[in-house]
C-alpha cells in the first residue's frame, strides 16, 4: 500500500464553548474515493474547512501527501495539491465562466510574470486555451462568456468543478456535489467523477445521498457530533449499529428519495 494522500491526526476545533470537531483521525488512500458522511451538524464541512485552511486546527495535525500542512496558510494549501468545491456554490459572480476557470489556474501561475499573463486579451494565450479546453471537455463551451450568476444551478456546479480541477489537485474535496441535481444529472456527475478518478485524482466526498456514495466510494468515514464513529466499506457502514443509530429516521427518507439501484 502506498502512503495515504491525506492523514488527519487527532484533529479538534472548537468555537466558543462548542467542540465542532473532536479527536478525529482518519486517512484517505491515494487514488481512492472516500465518502465522508454524517447527520447535519456532524462537522463534515468543518473538516473540509480545516483541511483547506479556512480555519486552523486547535489540536491535532493534518498531513497532505506526507507533508505537515497544519500551520500552512490557506492560500498556499492549494499548491500542496488540495482543491475543493462548496456546498452553496461560490463562483465569482462578476466573472464569466471562463474567467472563473482561469482563477482556478492561478496557483500554477504565480509571480509577477504569472500575474501579467494576458489571459483576457487574445485567444492565443496558452492558459486561456487550456481553460477553454477544460470547459469544452466538460460540455460547457456554450457558457464560456456568460456571467455565472445567471446560469442554471446544475451548470454552475459543473463550472465550479472545472475551476477546482484547473488547479491540478491530487486531492479533490467535494462538498455535496449531487445536492439539487435530478437523477439524470446525478448519474452524469458520477460518471464524470469516475473519469477524474481515472486520471489519478483522489476524491473525498461529503454527501447525504447514500446511493451516490455506494456507487462511487470504496471507503466511508462516518462522523457524528464532531467525532468519528465508524469507517469501512459502504456495506460495513450500512450494517454498523452506531451508524444506524445516528441516522435513525434519516435513513428511511434517503432510501425513498432516489430510485433503487
Amino acid at each position, binding site marked *: 500500500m502506498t502512503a495515504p494522500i491525506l492523514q488527519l491526526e487527532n484533529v479538534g476545533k472548537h468555537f466558543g464553548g462548542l467542540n465542532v470537531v473532536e479527536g478525529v483521525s482518519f486517512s484517505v488512500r491515494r487514488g481512492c474515493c472516500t465518502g465522508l458522511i454524517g447527520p447535519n451538524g456532524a462537522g463534515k464541512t468543518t473538516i473540509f474547512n480545516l483541511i483547506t485552511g479556512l480555519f486552523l486546527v486547535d489540536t491535532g495535525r493534518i498531513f497532505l501527501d506526507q507533508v505537515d500542512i497544519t500551520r500552512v496558510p490557506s*492560500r498556499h494549501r492549494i499548491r500542496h495539491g488540495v482543491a475543493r468545491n462548496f456546498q452553496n456554490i461560490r463562483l465569482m459572480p462578476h466573472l464569466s465562466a471562463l474567467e472563473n476557470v482561469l*482563477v482556478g489556474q492561478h496557483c500554477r501561475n504565480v509571480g509577477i510574470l504569472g*500575474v*501579467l*499573463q494576458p*489571459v*483576457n486579451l487574445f*485567444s492565443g494565450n496558452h492558459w486561456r486555451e487550456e481553460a477553454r479546453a477544460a470547459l469544452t471537455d466538460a460540455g460547457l*463551451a456554450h457558457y*464560456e462568456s456568460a456571467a455565472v450568476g445567471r446560469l442554471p444551478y446544475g451548470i454552475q456546479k459543473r463550472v465550479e468543478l472545472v475551476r477546482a480541477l484547473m488547479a491540478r489537485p491530487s486531492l479533490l474535496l467535494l462538498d455535496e456535489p449531487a445536492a439539487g441535481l435530478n437523477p439524470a444529472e446525478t448519474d452524469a456527475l458520477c460518471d464524470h467523477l469516475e473519469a477524474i478518478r481515472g486520471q489519478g485524482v483522489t476524491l473525498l466526498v461529503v454527501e447525504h445521498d447514500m446511493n451516490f456514495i455506494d456507487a462511487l466510494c470504496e471507503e466511508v468515514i462516518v462522523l457524528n457530533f464532531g467525532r468519528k464513529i465508524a469507517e469501512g466499506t459502504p456495506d460495513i457502514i450500512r450494517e454498523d449499529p452506531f451508524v444506524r443509530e445516528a441516522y435513525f429516521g434519516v435513513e428511511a427518507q434517503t432510501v425513498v428519495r432516489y430510485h433503487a439501484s
Partner: protein
Amino acid sequence: MSGYIQGILVLLAINIVFAYAAFLPMAAGQLNLGVSGFAAIGGYVSAYISNKSTVSVAVAIPLGGVAAGFIALAVAIPVVRTRGIYLALATFALGQIVQATILNLEEVGGAAGYPVTAFVGFPFVAAFALAVFTFVCLLFATRFGIAITAVHDDEQVADLMGLDVRAFQIAAFTIGAVVAGIGGGLYAHSFNYIEAQYFSISLSITIVLYVLLGGTQSVLGPALGAAVFTLLPELLRGGAQWRYVFFAAILIVVMVVRPQGLVTGAQLRRLIAMARKDRLA
C-alpha cells in the same frame, strides 16, 4: 477648437485620470476616499520639481505619481488590513491629513496656493489620459484583472484558490495612488496653479460617485462616468455649482434605478465576445 471647448476637454481628460485612480482600488473592493490626497501629493511634487529644476514636465508628472505611490505603499499595509467601512474611513482620514499637512507647508505656498510656471496644453493632457486608459485596459486584460475582480467578489474563496488577497489589494491601492498623482500633476500644470483646498473630501467623494455612475464592473465604466460628469452639465448649461446639483441628483436616481452603473460587465463581455469571435462554431 475654441478655448472654451479645449478647457472642457482638458477637464474631461483630467477627470478620466482621476476616475481610474479611484477605480483601481474599487475594483478590488476598497472604497478609497483619500484619492484627492494622493492627487494632491502628485500635483505638489510634480509642480515643485518642474518649478525648481530643469526637469521636463513630461518627467515631473510621472515623478509626482511615483511619490504618491510611495506614500500609498507606506500606509497601505496597515490601512488595507482594515476592511470595508473602516478602510473607507481610514483613507478619508489619510486624505484629510495630507490636505492639512500641505496647508502648513510654506515652501509650497501653504494656504495661499502654489503657482506653477510650466504649462501643458490639451494634446499633452490627452496623451497622458490616453496612456492611463490604455494601461488600465491592458492591466485588466491580464490575470491581474481577473484576480482583482475575484478578490472583490469573494475574498475567502480567492484566498483558498491561492491568490494573495492582501498583496492584490495593496497593489490596487498603490497603483491607484500613482494614477491619482499623475492626475494631480496634470491638473497643476494645466491650470498653472494648485491649492490644497481643492483636494478635499468633496473631490474624493465626487470622483468615487462618477466612477460608480459609470459602473465599476468594466474598464470602460469610469471613463463614461467621468464623461457624464464633465459634459452633461455643459449641455444643460448652468453655473459651476449647478453641475454638482445635477450630478448628485442624477446619481441618486441612478442608484435607485440601476445601482450597477451605466456599463455593466455582462454587456461588455458580450460585446467583447462578439468582437473576438471566440465562440465555438
